[in-house]
């Protein structure tokens, strides 16, 4: 048995496609990033923007502030959040062999919303001073509350994940957490006042504009850790494509791999929810779009592609939500739903694609 020539033409074709797609996605991301700096409700000429980015001053002092303290951190936040959610969604879809799984399938965002609801809604309904509670509902307060909620759910998942044999059990657990927190939040809403309810609802719309420079180091560090962890488990993820039984037979330490996948996914979903609110649909839709584009489920290339595409789509969604030139700002979650829902519907309808992706 000698060398087979199947290798060279095959891999040359395959790898150049993957390379092309990754390069194209990177360029798309750069373009989206640049556009999001250039567009906004205040029209700032491009040359001013370039000057400001290079460290100079804009024609108006407010423009410098706008670009450096608003648009730039927002763009970075959107890109990181989009990447985080897409990667997290991909991990969940592979681990649970479910094409409709998203980053929140374990209940992470439900935990975060319960944390936020407790802080926003309870401090009013308990008759405690309406005003004294308000420092808590500022940015930092909300971030802390959401983080604690998300972390609590992560802890529950971590404890249970070590004990269960079947990964599917976690899926049911996540669903139950979601239902329970949902009903608790409705009870809190029922006893609260319109002002606070509006604040809570505003949080659920999601936004990329809430991360200031002082919060950026923490935010970006955690996301980078999550992304790197996700890449580190790319190899067992590929094995998981065949299911856990086969994966085990090929040498995967299933328990450890599962923990790594869960950790990466929860950290990414948790930090984004804490800083940006629960942003949906990106995590479900982007993995599918990547699979179509790359024509492979190989996670070594699907993960980076998902990160790049997710970042770009998040930036685009944010730009649409801002209605460039207009004064109104649409809820971010509505825009991501408009982008993502058609993708999900198409996934469901094109059953052939479903069968290709996972066991139907």
């Amino acid at each position, binding site marked *: 048995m000698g060398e087979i020539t199947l290798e060279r033409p095959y891999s040359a074709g395959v790898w150049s496609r993957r390379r092309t797609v990754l390069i194209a996605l990177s360029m798309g991301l750069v373009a989206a990033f640049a556009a999001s700096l250039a567009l906004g409700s205040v029209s700032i000429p491009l040359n001013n923007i370039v000057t400001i980015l290079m460290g100079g001053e804009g024609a108006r002092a407010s423009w410098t502030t706008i670009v450096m303290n608003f648009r730039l951190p927002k763009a970075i936040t959107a890109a990181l959040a989009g990447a985080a959610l897409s990667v997290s969604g991909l991990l969940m879809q592979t681990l649970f062999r479910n094409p409709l799984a998203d980053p929140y399938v374990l209940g992470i965002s439900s935990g975060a919303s319960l944390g936020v609801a407790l802080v926003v809604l309870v401090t009013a309904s308990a008759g405690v001073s309406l005003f004294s509670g308000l420092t808590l509902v500022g940015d930092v307060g909300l971030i802390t509350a959401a983080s604690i909620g998300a972390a609590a759910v992560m802890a529950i998942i971590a404890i249970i994940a070590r004990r269960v044999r079947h990964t599917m059990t976690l899926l049911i657990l996540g669903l139950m957490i979601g239902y329970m927190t949902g009903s608790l939040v409705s009870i809190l809403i029922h006893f609260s006042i319109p002002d606070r309810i509006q604040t809570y609802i505003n949080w659920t719309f999601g936004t990329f504009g809430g991360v200031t420079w002082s919060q950026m180091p923490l935010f970006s560090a955690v996301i980078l850790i999550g992304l790197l962890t996700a890449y580190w488990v790319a190899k067992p993820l590929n094995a998981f494509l065949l299911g856990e039984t086969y994966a085990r037979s090929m040498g995967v330490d*299933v328990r450890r791999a599962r923990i790594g996948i869960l950790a990466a996914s929860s950290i990414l979903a948790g930090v984004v929810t804490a800083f940006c609110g629960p942003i949906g649909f990106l995590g479900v839709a982007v993995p599918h779009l990547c699979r179509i584009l790359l024509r492979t489920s190989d996670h070594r290339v699907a993960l980076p592609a998902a990160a790049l595409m997710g970042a770009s789509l998040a930036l685009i969604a944010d730009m649409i939500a801002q209605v460039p030139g207009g004064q109104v700002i649409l809820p971010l979650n509505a825009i991501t739903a408009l982008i993502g829902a058609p993708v999900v519907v198409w996934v469901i309808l094109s059953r052939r694609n479903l069968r290709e992706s996972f066991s139907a």
Partner: protein
Amino acid sequence: MILETHDLSIGYTKKTIASRLNLTLQAGELVCLLGQNGAGKSTLIRTLAGMQPPLNGRVLLNGDDVRRLDARALARRLGVVLTERADVGMLSVHDLVALGRYPYTDWMSRLQPEDKRAVNRAIESVGASELAYRPVSELSDGERQKVMIARALAQEPALMILDEPTAFLDLPRRAEIMFLLRDLARESGRAILLSTHDLDLALRTADRVWLLANGTLTDGAPEDLVLSGAFASAFQSEGVSFNISEGAFHVQRPQRTPICLSGDGVTRLWMARALERAGFEVVDSAVDRVEIITQTDSARFRLHYAGVLTEYESIYALIAALRDNSGVVQTS
């Protein structure tokens, strides 16, 4: 000796399926595990593969207890193929087979030259070279199972265990796979154990058969087991019997009208089968009689029935006439 078991008991906490098993698997042999549904074939397979703990005893693979080996070490010695249609997302055949190198590659799954060689060898040995570019989802079931076998081969294991690998395949594909496995075992020096319901192919391809029935496992060459009657008794059930001379199963019919058949050669053999299907029993002497008249190109069939003599050109016409006339309804 690649695999051996010492005093192995398999089953679940509530139920012991078989006990005191001392089995061996040698290099280069293809062993088929046969038995009725529910006899415990899957349990034995899973216990031997280390997927399930034994109730008692040990399973040694190349001298090491399979329950003590870590996943990676075990994967280098044992390759597994299961019944299920593994839907694998969008992977090409090459990528799927390359997954078999998992226990050898680094964290980025980079394929070193010997990995690539192993993958190529595996693809070639199952005859899937032309499919290497194609996505797995586009393959037929038979091709897909070949690819899954290639993946297990890429692990370069000493032992391969397959759990009903031909369950969803049609007959030609099943034959193809079984012969492929037999060749693989012989040429690569691997031990291959597979469970199957396909008795006929098993009897033709296996070097040894493990017959699991009623809590006991009988081990031997397929022909030995047939002639000793072990086969017949293992698959004994109401109305079904194993015919040694034909090597096939017969369904016993309650009422059989006797009929006499004269003629020879292949045509006689098949006429006899047709008559049996129609509910008749071929005996040496009877009132009614079928005659086969061989001519140069074809045969004609003469029927003496209820005192009437008629002639037909096809077996179908004769049988149809018999049915109409005798009112014998073929019960299926």
